C-alpha cells in the first residue's frame, strides 16, 4: 500500500514536470514526442518499486479492511477501464471538445495547424489548455485511440493513491485509512456514469486529481506535492490559474496565521477580496448580471446537498466547520481549509462574469462539475480532521491514564 501511495505521489510530480516541458514545446510551436509521456508514466512506477525496500519499516500491517478496500478499488478500476476503452466519450463535452482535441493532436500535423489557427475551421473551445488531450493523444499513438482513453482510469488510480497517502501519513488505523481513500476514490460523481465522471473524458478528473495532490501535500506538509498539484491544475483547465492563485493565497494566509499574525492574514485576504470586487466592478460593473446572484447562490447551495453526486462530504464538512473547536479540535490544515472555502466562493464567478451563460442550464451541469473539483479535497480534509481529533482524544486519554495524571485527577477530585 505504501508503494501504491508512493507511486501516486511520484506520478503527480512527473505529470507536473511533463506539463512544464510540454509548455516549452508549445512555445516553440511544436508538440512533445509521445515517448516523453510514456517516460512520465513509467518513471514513477519504477521509482516507487525501486524505493520499496526503504519503506519497509514504515509499512503498516495489512488487515481485512485494507484487503476489502483494495478489492473494491480493483472492481471499480476494472469497470472504469472498460468504460473508457469500450467507446469514445459518451458525454457531450467529452465527445465534442476534449475527445476531438485528442483526435486532432493525434492526427495530421497540417490539419492540426488549421484547427488551432484557421478561424474558418469550426473548433470547439479552441483556446482551452492542451495538457489533457496531449496526454491522451500521446498514449493513443502507442496504444491506439481506445488505449489512449485508459489515461482516465489511470488518473483515477493516482487520485486514489494520493488519498491513501494522506491517510497513511496521518497514522490513521486501518479502518480510518480505508475509509479515507475509499470515500475519496468512490466519490459518486466520479465513478457513476455522467458528465465529469472518470470515463466521460471531461477534464474534471484531472483537476480533481491535481487538487487532491495539493490537499494531500498540505495535510502531510509535503511542499513538493503542493507545488506539483498546483502546476498541473494551473495547466489543465481554464479555471486552473485561478485555482493556483487560491492555493498561493491559502498558503500565505495559513502561514501568517501560524506565525501568530491572524489579523494580518485576515486583513490580506479581506483586502484582496475587496480589491478583486472593486476591479471587477470597475471593469465590468455595468454589464454584470447582479439579478442572477440570488439564483446562483441558491443553485450552488442546493448543488452542494446533492448526495447522489458528492455523498455526504459537504454536509460532514459543514458540520465540522460550525461545531465548536473544543468538540471537534482544530482544523488539521488551515491552508486546506482556506483553499476549499476559496474554491466554493469562486464557483459562482463564471455565471456572473459571462452574462451570456444560460443560468438554469449551467447550474445543472457546470456548477455540479465545479463543485466536484473540491469534493475530494474536502473529504480528505474532513477525514484528517476526524482522524486527528480521534488521535488527540486517545493521546489525552493515555495521558490521563498515566500514574502522575491519575494522581492529579484524584487530587483535584
Amino acid at each position: 500500500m505504501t508503494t501504491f501511495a508512493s507511486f501516486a505521489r511520484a506520478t503527480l510530480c512527473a505529470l507536473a514536470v511533463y506539463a512544464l516541458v510540454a509548455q516549452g514545446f508549445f512555445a516553440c510551436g511544436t508538440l512533445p514526442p509521445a515517448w516523453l509521456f510514456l517516460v512520465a508514466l513509467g518513471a514513477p512506477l519504477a521509482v516507487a518499486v525501486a524505493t520499496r525496500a526503504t519503506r519497509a519499516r514504515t509499512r503498516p500491517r495489512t488487515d481485512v479492511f485494507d484487503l476489502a478496500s483494495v478489492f473494491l478499488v480493483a472492481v471499480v478500476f476494472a469497470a472504469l477501464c472498460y468504460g473508457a476503452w469500450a467507446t469514445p466519450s459518451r458525454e457531450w463535452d467529452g465527445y465534442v471538445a476534449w475527445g476531438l482535441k485528442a483526435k486532432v493532436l493525434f492526427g495530421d500535423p497540417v490539419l492540426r495547424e488549421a484547427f488551432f489557427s484557421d478561424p474558418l475551421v469550426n473548433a470547439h473551445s479552441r483556446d482551452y489548455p492542451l495538457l489533457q488531450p496531449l496526454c491522451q493523444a500521446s498514449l493513443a499513438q502507442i496504444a491506439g485511440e481506445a488505449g489512449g482513453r485508459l489515461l482516465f482510469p489511470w488518473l483515477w488510480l493516482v487520485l486514489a493513491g494520493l488519498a491513501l497517502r494522506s491517510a497513511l501519513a496521518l497514522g490513521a488505523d486501518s479502518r480510518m485509512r480505508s475509509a479515507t481513500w475509499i470515500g475519496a476514490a468512490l466519490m459518486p460523481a466520479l465513478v457513476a456514469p455522467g458528465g465529469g465522471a472518470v470515463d466521460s473524458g471531461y477534464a474534471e478528473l484531472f483537476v480533481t486529481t491535481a487538487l487532491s495532490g495539493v490537499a494531500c501535500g498540505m495535510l502531510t506538509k509535503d511542499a513538493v506535492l503542493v507545488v506539483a498539484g498546483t502546476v498541473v491544475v494551473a495547466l489543465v483547465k481554464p479555471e486552473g490559474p485561478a485555482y493556483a492563485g487560491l492555493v498561493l493565497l491559502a498558503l500565505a494566509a495559513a502561514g501568517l496565521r501560524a506565525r501568530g499574525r491572524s489579523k494580518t492574514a485576515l486583513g490580506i485576504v479581506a483586502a484582496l477580496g475587496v480589491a478583486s470586487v472593486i476591479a471587477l466592478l470597475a471593469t465590468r460593473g455595468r454589464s454584470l448580471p447582479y439579478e442572477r446572484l440570488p439564483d446562483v447562490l441558491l443553485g450552488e447551495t442546493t448543488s452542494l446537498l446533492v448526495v447522489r453526486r458528492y455523498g455526504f462530504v459537504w454536509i460532514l464538512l459543514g458540520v465540522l466547520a460550525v461545531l465548536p473547536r473544543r468538540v471537534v479540535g482544530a482544523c488539521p490544515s488551515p491552508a486546506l481549509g482556506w483553499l476549499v472555502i476559496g474554491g466554493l466562493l469562486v464557483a459562482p464567478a463564471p455565471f456572473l462574469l459571462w452574462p451570456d451563460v444560460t443560468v438554469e442550464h449551467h447550474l445543472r451541469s457546470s456548477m455540479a462539475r465545479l463543485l466536484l473539483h473540491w469534493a475530494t479535497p474536502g473529504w480528505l480534509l474532513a477525514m484528517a480532521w476526524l482522524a486527528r481529533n480521534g488521535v488527540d482524544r486517545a493521546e489525552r486519554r493515555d495521558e490521563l491514564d498515566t500514574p502522575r495524571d491519575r494522581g492529579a485527577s484524584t487530587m483535584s477530585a
Partner: protein
Amino acid sequence: MRLRAVLIALAGAHLAFCIGRVPHAVVWKRWQEITAFRSEGDLENLFRRAELEGAQHVRWLQQNTPERSAILFAGEIKGPLEFAAAALWPRPLVNAQWVGAQATEAAGRPLAQGTLPDGASGALLLRGERRALHLEVRR
C-alpha cells in the same frame, strides 16, 4: 461524545452510500450505457440522449465523403453542429460565410461534393439549428 458520534455517522453514511452504489450505478448502469451506445451508434445515441435531430445527415457524410475533404457549415454553432465537427474529423467543418461561392477548397482541403437523396448535387453544407441539423447543397 454525542456530537462525535454524529460526525462518525455522517462519514459512515458517505462510505455506505459510495460503496452501495458500486454494483448498480458504477457497474450495471455503465454496462447498459455502453451496450446501448455500441448498438445504436455513437452519433445516434448522443443525439437521442441530448434530444437533437439530424444524426443521419452526419452519418451520411461520414459514409459518402472522403476523409481528405472539408465540409461547409452555416447557422447555429452551438448544439448538434458541435457533435458533427467531432464525428466528421478529420474532415474539418468550414464556415461557409467566409468561403467564396466559387471556391473549391478550404483549410487546405477540397470541399466535399455530393448528390443528396433528393437529387441536388454540389458542395455539401451542414446547416445547424439549436436542436437540429440539415444537410443541403450550397446554392
